[in-house]
Each structure stands twice: as structure tokens, then as C-alpha cells.
């Protein structure tokens, strides 16, 4: 009986394997030619995957969809709303199973490039490229963030950048000024601690917050052309001395300016944020998208909230005017039978009215549409941040998004090891070099 069962099992497995063997060596699929500029047919169901799940953001797309359906009642919209973390898994699962929605969320950098390379993102150059009426409504930098080989694939929805948020009252109490250099930032930590504050609150449980510090420091220390070459495993050397300097400075910041020091990996990003909002910490490195959390309902009052870019270290050889950040937006599935309808929907989403709505409270996501973000509609800090982003010499994309996942993962593990002290800057860089070489 048992041997018969085993035989049946073997036959089952063998048959399945043979059936699947036909799938071997499938060539990479090319994106089908799509006419994004065609006149849309207002019927059918449009599926949209967003990153706006949650109480504060989910009503935005729900409202936009309701308004769109008032104009086109014959169009159904299936809204799939995910969180910042879950959208990653969801998108990859849908991609692997050939079930990508018509419109889907995307970061810039390597993340979006994968979809472009795989023929899964429609070429929108004809409708959103420079010189087109729709393209002219966006800031050029935001638009070009989704450009690959001169073609435009993404619809940037909102802009983002990373800044050090600080508590002005804490700075006044400790008698410190906004630091003009990274060294001054480090020097300010002792008086802030004496004044009863954790100088810099930092939670690295998820690993990526450390990469945000590192990427900004890399941009300051490593010349832009070297940095860009190092993101690509095909050209990476990762031998510029600026990397080690940046890693050392990051470690000094963690050791001297946080209360959690080598235990920072055990703290949630949101716990650190809470400390800042509750007035227990003087500084917190955060994205523009987080500025809306300063509502005045906690200890930190909006009038006491200020921002500055992470100060530039003295003698840094890179770009002192670079700011870490990138727009986030949406791609249109090149294999969708409703590309023109999807374009029409995204034009509606990024209309001036909806862009202003997105930029204002309670959403406070600074739209990439020119003129949609003002001090009146978006609040002083958001406006100030976006102004600095617009004036930056370049936007340096998040380290975990700009390079291939294997290298990003090596940076992530290296950042954590640096914090705990189990690895040195030199060893971290060596592990990243190995990962990059393996990813060639």
C-alpha cells in the first residue's frame, strides 16, 4: 500500500514537472506597443493599486474615484489600497502571477526600472513627456525621475525629501543654533542632552531609516558621477574614501546623539517619531510626508517645528546641495487593454484641483503639479521643504530603491551591523562590494 502511494506521488510530481518544463527558457517579454494618446473608451473596469491604505490617506483616492465616476458613470474603478510596506509584496505577487492592475504605485529608481525593463510599464512619452500639455503641469525634475533612456513612463503624484526636523523650543532652552555643518550638529548633542532632551531620536528596527542617513552622507562625500556608477553593479567600484568617512560619521551620530545608541535597531521608526512629537527629543530625521504629523495635539507645537537639511560635513568631496528624496507616482500597465482610459483617469487625479486637495490637510502630500503647493494650502514646513527640494542641485534617490535589491540588502544589513558595533565601516563596505560583484 505504501509503495503504491509513493509511486502515485512520484507520478504526480513527475507529471507536473514535465508539464511545467514547457515553460523553460521563456524569453524576456517586450512591452506591447500602446497608444497612450488614443481617445479613451469610457467603459469597463479600471483597477488601481495605491499606497494610500489607512485612515488618513485612503479617503483621497476614494474621493477622486467617486468624482471621476460622476463624470463617467459607465466606468467602474476597482481600488486596491495598500500600505507602504504591504504594497511591495502585493505588487511583486501580482507581477509574478501576471495580474498587475491597470494602474499601480511605484517608487523611482531601480523599483520602477524593473517594470520598464520587463515591459510592464506603458511608454507615456507622447502624453506626459516634455512639451506635452499634461507634462507641462509637472515640475521637470519630478517628471524626469520616471524617465529611462529618454522615454517617460511614470505619473509623479507627490514629491518627497528628507530633512532634519527640530524643536525650536528645545534648541532655545539648550542655547544651540541650527547647525551649519555636520560637526556642529554633533557638537550640539551634549548641550541638548544637558537641557533634558534626547538630541536625535532614531528608530532603525526596519533597517531602511539608517540607509536614509547614509545616502545623504554619501551624496555629500562621494562625487555624483562616482555615486551613480556605484549604484549599478555593472560599473560599481565602491572604492571612494567618502563611503568610509560617511559610515564613520553616521556611527558617531548614533553613538553621540541618540539615547538608544547601539540598541537603536530595537526601536521602531514610529516610536522615535512619537518621542519627537511628545517633546522628549530635540531632532528627528524625517520625510516631508511626515510633517503633517505635527498638528499641535502633542507637546510639539507647529510654531516650534523647524526643518533643515542634514548639515554638510566639512571638506566633503561630493555635492553639498544634493538632497535625498524622490517623487512617488504611478505606472500604467503596458499590457492593460485600457491604457488610454488609465491615462485619462491619471490626468484627472493630477488635475490642479485634485493636486491642491492632495497637498492640503488632512493629506498633506506635496503634489508634483506646479503651483499646487503653497504656504497657505500645505503649511509652512511642507512648503519650505518643497522649496528646498526644488532648489536642490539634484535629488538623491533612496538607497534601498536606487540600486539592485541584493546590494540594497547588503547596505541594510551593514547599517544595522554598524549600529550594533559588530562590524566596522571598512567591513560594511567590503560586504557591499561583494554583494555588488555577485549581482553583476
Amino acid at each position, binding site marked *: 500500500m505504501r509503495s503504491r502511494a509513493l509511486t502515485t506521488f512520484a507520478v504526480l510530481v513527475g507529471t507536473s514537472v514535465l508539464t511545467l518544463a514547457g515553460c523553460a527558457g521563456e524569453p*524576456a517579454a517586450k512591452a506591447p506597443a500602446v497608444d497612450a494618446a488614443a481617445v479613451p473608451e469610457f467603459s469597463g473596469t479600471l483597477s488601481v493599486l495605491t499606497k494610500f491604505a489607512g485612515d488618513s490617506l485612503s479617503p483621497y483616492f476614494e474621493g477622486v474615484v467617486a468624482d471621476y465616476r460622476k463624470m463617467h458613470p459607465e466606468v467602474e474603478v476597482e481600488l486596491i489600497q495598500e500600505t507602504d510596506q504591504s504594497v511591495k509584496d502585493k505588487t511583486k505577487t501580482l507581477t509574478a502571477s501576471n495580474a498587475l492592475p491597470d494602474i499601480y504605485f511605484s517608487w523611482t529608481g531601480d523599483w520602477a526600472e524593473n517594470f520598464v525593463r520587463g515591459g510592464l510599464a506603458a511608454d507615456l512619452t507622447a502624453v506626459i513627456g516634455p512639451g506635452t500639455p499634461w507634462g507641462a503641469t509637472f515640475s521637470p525634475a519630478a517628471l524626469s525621475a520616471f524617465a529611462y533612456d529618454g522615454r517617460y513612463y511614470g505619473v509623479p503624484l507627490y514629491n518627497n525629501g528628507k530633512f532634519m526636523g527640530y524643536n525650536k523650543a528645545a534648541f532655545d532652552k539648550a542655547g544651540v543654533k541650527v547647525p551649519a555643518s555636520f560637526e556642529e550638529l554633533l557638537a550640539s548633542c551634549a548641550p541638548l542632552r544637558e537641557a533634558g532632551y534626547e538630541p536625535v531620536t532614531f528608530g532603525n528596527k526596519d533597517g531602511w531609516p539608517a540607509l536614509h542617513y547614509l545616502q545623504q552622507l554619501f551624496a555629500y562625500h562621494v562625487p555624483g558621477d562616482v555615486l551613480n556608477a556605484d549604484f549599478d553593479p555593472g560599473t560599481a567600484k565602491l572604492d571612494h574614501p567618502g563611503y568610509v568617512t560617511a559610515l564613520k560619521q553616521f556611527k558617531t551620530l548614533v553613538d553621540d546623539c541618540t539615547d538608544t545608541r547601539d*540598541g537603536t535597531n530595537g526601536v521602531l521608526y514610529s516610536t522615535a517619531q512619537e518621542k519627537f512629537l511628545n517633546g522628549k527629543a530635540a531632532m528627528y530625521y524625517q520625510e516631508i510626508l511626515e510633517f503633517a504629523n505635527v498638528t499641535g495635539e502633542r507637546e510639539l507645537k507647529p510654531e516650534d517645528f523647524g526643518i533643515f537639511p542634514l548639515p554638510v560635513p566639512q571638506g566633503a568631496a561630493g555635492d553639498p546641495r544634493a538632497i535625498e528624496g524622490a517623487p512617488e507616482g504611478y505606472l500604467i500597465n503596458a499590457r492593460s487593454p485600457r491604457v488610454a482610459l488609465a491615462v485619462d483617469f491619471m490626468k484627472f487625479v493630477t488635475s490642479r484641483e485634485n493636486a491642491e486637495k492632495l497637498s492640503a490637510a488632512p493629506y498633506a502630500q506635496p503634489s508634483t503639479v506646479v503651483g499646487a503647493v503653497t504656504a497657505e494650502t500645505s503649511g509652512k514646513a511642507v512648503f519650505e521643504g518643497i522649496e528646498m527640494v526644488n532648489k536642490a542641485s539634484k535629488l538623491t534617490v533612496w538607497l534601498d530603491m536606487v540600486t539592485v535589491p541584493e546590494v540594497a540588502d547588503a547596505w*541594510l544589513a551593514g547599517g544595522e551591523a554598524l549600529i*550594533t558595533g559588530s562590524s566596522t565601516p571598512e567591513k560594511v563596505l567590503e560586504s557591499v562590494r561583494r554583494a555588488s560583484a555577485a549581482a553583476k
Partner: protein
Amino acid sequence: MRAIVRRTLGFAWVVPALVLVGVFVYLPLAQNLWFSTLEWDIYSGSREYIGLDNYGRLLQDPVFWSSFGNNLLYAAVSIAVQVFGALVLAALIESIRSERWRRGLRAVYFLPSAISLTVAGLLFYFVYEPSLGPLNHLLRSVGLGELAQAWLGQESTAMNAIIAMSQWQGFGYSTLLFAVAIQRIPAEIHGAAAIDGVGPIRRFFHVTLPLVREMTGLMAIVTVSGSFQVFNEVMVMTGGGPNNSTQVLGTWLYRSGFVRNDFGYAAAIATVLFVITLGIALLQLWFTHRRRVEW
């Protein structure tokens, strides 16, 4: 003729079940085996057959081996605590004369098992939190402040902290099962041993232990098998960090596929995991087929 019809009809009744098992169990299993021999780019859809290369990479991957080591550590601690520790505790509880106390203690120890692992993981994440967590607060308040640390933030303590949480969560369930096994031992056997002057400790080793051998073996197998399926608590508490120090095979599989886009390699890890758990399951089948202890 009638027999043939009956046999055919009987087969027809099981066909839907066979189809379901085939489609949802054996087909994915076979697919996984196949995927483990591919270099698969989910974006372009290209699948290149690379034979056993992914398995060769496994052998040279230090994170795979440290993950495997963490699973083994998890299993070893679970055997000690959830099998032998739970057996001792069950024997102690069952030796209490008061029925009310016995019931009360069983309920107290079982309570954590009623909480899902994900919720327990989240709960303990806050217990271990370095500055706000009650564990460090307790240590500081009893003068052991130098022991306070970031339990989940240090490579040296993170895995042990996760294992400690899972023991807390699973200990009561094992205790309850052992208590039931001990209750099945006829009271006369213990009574006779006591009349012969056998003390409680010798009674445990020479009466209780041999008579719950079947349950002990089964629990050991189930516990080891469970230790290789660990996923939720690690994902919730550390996500495998810091520096991959708390990766187990399940989380490294997930990370390889869903973070590093290396789905062929992830399938190879899944195959190894399947072989291990299949081996343990076969051991369990063999064990349950053995002759029972009778009295």
C-alpha cells in the same frame, strides 16, 4: 458487474478530493521544485534553467547556514522547555490535591497559548523595547539596570529574546497535553508505588515518565517540526535583523523572494525546508504507528 459499478462509484466520490489535493498541494509542490532550478525574473517573465545552481549557492550562503542554526537552536530550546519543562510542570500540577487549584493552574499556564503568535510577538516587542519597555524598567527598578539593553536590537540577544517569547506562548499548551496524558495513568499504579515507599521524584522517573513516553515522543516531534516552520514571530519582532542575526529559514526564504527578487533561490530554500519537515513528518507517522503503551 455490480461490484465494478460500486468500485467506480466509490472512486468517483473521491475524485473531487483528489483533484483538490492535487491542485492545491502536489502541483504547487512540484512547481516549487521546478522553480528552484530556474533563474526567474518576475518582471520580464524570463525563466532560465540553471539546474542545481541555486542549491550550490545555498551551501555557500552564510545567512542560509545561520538561519538553519537559528532553527536548530529554536528546536533545542523548545525541546528542553516545551517538552521536558512542560512535562515536569504538568506532573507538579497533577500532584496537587486540590482539584480547584489544579484547574486554575492549568488555565493560567494555558492562557498565553490562546493568544496568536503575531499578537504575542507584537506584545513582546513592546516588552523588550529599550527605553519604554517594562522589562528594562523592571530591571532598573530592582537594581539590575546594568542588564537593561535593547533586547531585539542587539545581535547577541535578539534571537534568544524571540525564542523566550515563543516558549512563553507555547509552554502552556504542552503542559495541558501532558496533564491529560498524566491523568490517563491509573491512580492505582501511583498508589502501589507510594505503598512500596517510592518517593515522588522516583515515582516521576519510574512511573510517570515511562507511561507518558508516547506523548513525550510525539510532542518532541511536533515541537521540532514547528521549530522549522517559525515565521510570524520573527517577522513581527525583528524582520530577521539586526544584520540577519535572527533570520530563520522561513524568513530568509521570504526575504530572498520578496525583497531580493531572487525567486528561484527562495524556491530552493523552500525545497530544503520541505525536505526537513517531510522527514520529521515521516518520523511522526512512524512513531504513531508503533505499539501503544498499555496497562
